[in-house]
């Protein structure tokens, strides 16, 4: 276990700050939040990615990822989440091309909350340009540019949205910045 670096300096307060960033992002889709964390992380984990998982994942949440052995060892040491196939996972981390939305856990009509949260690490996020977002949490329209968004994401999102209330919620992380796409949001290409 050489080179395993610490998690949150203050587990209670740092987790709270990270959670509030995600809550704010989920409540106002397309608005970019900062986690403000400065962790020493194994590649390819970014600050926001690590902060989101440290704050929310634990032994109760099945986890699937494509981040490699070093990241896996770090995350599992700090969060203790069991590894499961992507189709059963509560949290799915994609640092490269994410699995198709439709293959992830969608919940059921009666329990739509039993669905996956997909954390995608992207190259960059910017407000006021790119996609046009509408839906709950948005007064008129928010705009969000996602550099390195998965190919065909907007079409896949629209298709998956048709299953509401079932669906998948997405957190986009770039560096220490994050934005979220709850399943209710409608995305139109800019």
């Amino acid at each position, binding site marked *: 276990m050489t080179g395993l670096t610490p998690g949150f300096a203050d587990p209670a307060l740092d987790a*709270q700050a990270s959670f509030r960033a995600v809550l704010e992002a*989920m*409540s*106002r889709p397309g608005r970019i939040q900062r986690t403000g964390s400065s962790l020493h992380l194994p590649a390819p984990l970014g600050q926001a990615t690590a902060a989101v998982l440290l704050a*929310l994942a634990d032994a109760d949440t099945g986890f699937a990822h494509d981040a490699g052995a070093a990241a896996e060892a770090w995350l599992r040491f700090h969060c203790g989440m069991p590894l499961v196939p992507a189709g059963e996972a509560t949290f799915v981390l994609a640092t490269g091309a994410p699995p198709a939305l439709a293959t992830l856990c969608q919940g059921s009509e009666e329990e739509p*909350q039993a*669905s996956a949260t997909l954390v995608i690490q992207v190259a960059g996020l910017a407000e006021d340009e790119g996609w046009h977002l509408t839906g709950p949490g948005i*007064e008129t329209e928010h705009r969000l540019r996602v550099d390195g968004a998965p190919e065909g994401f907007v079409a896949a999102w629209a298709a998956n949205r048709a299953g509401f209330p079932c669906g998948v919620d997405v957190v986009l992380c770039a560096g220490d910045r994050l934005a979220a796409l*709850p399943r*209710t949001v409608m995305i139109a290409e800019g």
Partner: protein
Amino acid sequence: MTITVVPPAPSTLEGYNFAYLDEATKRMIRRALLKAVAIPGHQIPFGAREMPLPYGWGTGGIQVTASILGPTDTLKVIDQGADDTTNAISIRRFFTRVAGVATTEHTAEATVVQTRHRIPERTLREDQIIVYQVPQPEPLFRLEPRRMETKRLHALADYGLMHVRLYEDIARLGHIAKAYDYPVMVNRRYLMSPSPIPAFDNPKMHRMPALQLFGAGREKRIYAIPPYTEVRSLDFEDHPFRPIRAPHACALCGSRDTYLDEVITDDAGGRLFVCSDTDFCAERQADSAKEAAE
């Protein structure tokens, strides 16, 4: 030998985690809250913990507040609009002791407002969160007591029962006789109990700039309304929803557009009407006193 007495930290209580709940519980509630925001109006079961106060005193709201609260937050707690009732004072003091957060009685200064059965008169802003204490989260409970069945009705968005319930009021009394806990449709999908706020407050939920979170401790349910989300009170084309208030002016501040409490003043039928929102009323009184002085 001298005994040095170390005074406890001025605000927070030793021996408890920040904001009372342990971190595993907070994570579980936080995950439920995020899914609640993603599925507006849908009730999500959560493992409500025993709190150091009885069910019915806001244990659900307290657990939600404890899970979102940070050291930089300013907390306001109201009970039926009032900042100075036992329940509101106890909950404010609880969070002062276990989280060391600043508290306020002024709606404008608060970042988190926990409420029992009212929405403040002052419009909430984007940077505020309102947490409702909910006794019964299931709007269909009185019509269909079986949880398994109401779950299915929500899944099918089959809310005919509630429409019939409201229609029966109209048939019998000529109007919908629900003055509080008036059911709403959230984002045109889920029927939701707004908690027992007066129907007068229902329109404030519609496209509110603030995030609205609901916690039911005994019933172990969490739900939410994201900002700027459509919230419609159930009604009929020929019997549109009407928010009701006592047709009087506040005896203290003279307001004619706020929700009023009736206060019995003597044994001879004497009564007066005052604003239920004590902070709003006090502000109006201070404003008019200032104007009078000028």
